[in-house]
């Protein structure tokens, strides 16, 4: 008979992010046939009672397990990949997955530097024999298309020179557009967000608060795409810290969970320290501790190693 402690440990090893390989080896690996049988009988969510008198693995759960086992492999592959290929593949995958993943396209277009985005577009040519903007335009329609195509096509000025008077008046333009409803249909909103340099947008962010009293992303609650755009352009670390927080919740869907690997792998060399700080400020617990509690095995160790780099 399997011990209740062991059963609990085994169940825990299968749930969360990644697999606790050690538990599987030290407990499951030692079980006799009878122990395994009682494990099967005792877990009707994993094993279905088949009409021909045996306990059958539930296909859906096997698939889930497969994803969990693959989490470490995916993280490793993504980590070793050239950043250009990485971003190109992430963008393509997001495009194929559909609207619930388009935020990833915004993330890539807005949080990467001008040269990094360009590199991703180059890699896209090589990998998929078409341009990123071509593919995005083909798969997305309406106002979202205008926004997303323009975002992935941007090659923003990266110097510090900016005209504060223009930033002030553009902050007002944005405020008026948001107040008047449907800002994503406003050409000026698109123009400002998709062509202005990031320092210029930071200045707009500041002036907006003076005009509205609220931060611009707070006023954009009704428009998810614009909100994501503004967050990624103006407050990326906060954005990433939020994405990580959602990914680390219990019982989230596949795509949300995947964000854990994506964010950590893509930001470990950039602004991971600031993201960790923001996470700590927002949630009162360190990101490492949260990962320690939620993820398992090699996957967990890998993530912790990545985020520990650079302090």
């Amino acid at each position, binding site marked *: 008979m399997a011990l209740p402690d062991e059963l609990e440990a085994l169940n825990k090893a299968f749930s969360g992010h990644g697999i606790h390989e050690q538990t599987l080896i030290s407990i499951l690996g030692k079980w006799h046939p009878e122990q395994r049988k009682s494990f099967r009988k005792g877990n009707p969510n994993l094993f279905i009672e088949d009409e021909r008198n045996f306990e059958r693995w539930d296909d859906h759960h096997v698939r889930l397990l497969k994803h969990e086992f693959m989490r470490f492999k995916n993280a490793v592959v993504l980590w070793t990949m050239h950043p250009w290929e990485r971003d190109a593949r992430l963008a393509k995958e997001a495009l194929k997955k559909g609207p619930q993943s388009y935020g990833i396209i915004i993330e890539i277009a807005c949080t990467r530097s001008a040269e990094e985005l360009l590199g991703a577009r180059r890699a896209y*040519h090589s990998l998929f024999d078409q*341009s990123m903007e*071509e593919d995005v*335009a083909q798969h997305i329609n309406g106002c979202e298309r*205008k926004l997303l*195509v323009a975002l992935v*096509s941007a*090659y923003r*000025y990266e110097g510090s020179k900016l005209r504060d008077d223009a930033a002030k008046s553009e902050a007002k333009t944005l405020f008026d557009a948001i107040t008047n409803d449907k800002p994503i249909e406003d050409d000026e909103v698109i123009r400002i967000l998709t*062509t202005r340099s990031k320092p210029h947008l930071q200045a707009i962010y500041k002036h907006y608060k003076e005009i509205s009293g609220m931060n611009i992303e707070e006023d954009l609650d009704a428009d998810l795409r614009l909100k994501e755009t503004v967050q990624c352009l103006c407050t990326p670390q906060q954005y990433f810290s939020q994405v990580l927080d959602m990914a680390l919740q219990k019982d989230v869907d596949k795509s949300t969970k995947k964000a854990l690997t994506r964010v950590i792998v893509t930001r470990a060399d950039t602004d991971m320290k600031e993201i960790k700080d923001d996470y700590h400020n927002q949630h009162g617990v360190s990101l490492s501790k949260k990962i320690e509690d939620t993820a398992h095995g090699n996957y967990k160790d890998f993530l912790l190693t990545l985020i520990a780099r650079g302090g």
Partner: protein
Amino acid sequence: MATIIVAEDASVHEDAQALRNACQGWGTDEKAIIKILGHRNATQRKQIRQAYEELYEEDLVKRLENELSGDFEKAVYRWILDPADRDAVLANVAVRKAESNYHVIIEISCILSPEELLVVRRAYQSRYKRSLEEDVAAHTTGDLRQLLVALVSAYRYDGHEVNERLAKSEADILHDAIKDKAFNHEEVTRILSTRSKTQLRAIFNRYKDEHDTSITKNLSGDPHSDLQKALRTAIRCINDPKKYFEKLVRNAIKGVGTDEEALTRVIVTRAERDLNGIKELYYQRNSVSLDHAVAKETSGDYKAFLLTLLGKED
């Protein structure tokens, strides 16, 4: 093919000295300037500028700007810049009068290769501390803005594959949009600004095959519509740049007065690329050589400089 006759063995230092001499003292020796600069390729011109700076601690470009004037000065100024920098300057000049000079922006974004356009965008940022698309967007509105920003931001796939099925379906989309007079339709912008040039040429051919008229002819309905004009320009530039330039230069020369801005632009920007092909096309079309036409319509140092770039032997 290029038209300029390059002196391969020229000494950069001697050139710098000769240019210095040409600019010193009373008056300027324009003939010397033409003789040197008109026979140097982009690499040599860059080295001459560097050598001049080292020798005389002065910017040759600024010096020439001060010494020369009129159409001649504009032509020499454009000629002496690095090609990407030159295109950035031309783009900026056009952007500031974008509602009327958008065709220059379309030329630059549609005729250059994807990599060349990228280099121009970098040069633009370096010179003007803003991105090209930022400026284009800020100086245009509505449908024209959508089209122009999309064109300058494109980083087209540069492969030679053609998807025939897609070419047919997108030719149909374009045809429907034009038929419905929905020229500002997003699909039109999408197709023209994102597809690879090879794919676009296949689309235009397919269009002609299926509908018996060229797409540009179908876009000629309203002579006052800037958007239609812009679309035609983009299509012509993508389809056949030489033919586009031949027409541009023909229109610049014919009739009363000459459009020096356009004439200079074509000759200066294409002299090291395909001006020879443009000349051949011009002769076929007009039964007179481009050199001859330019000689007739221009004068003085400006004329001498243009003819040198056109390949006139000294």
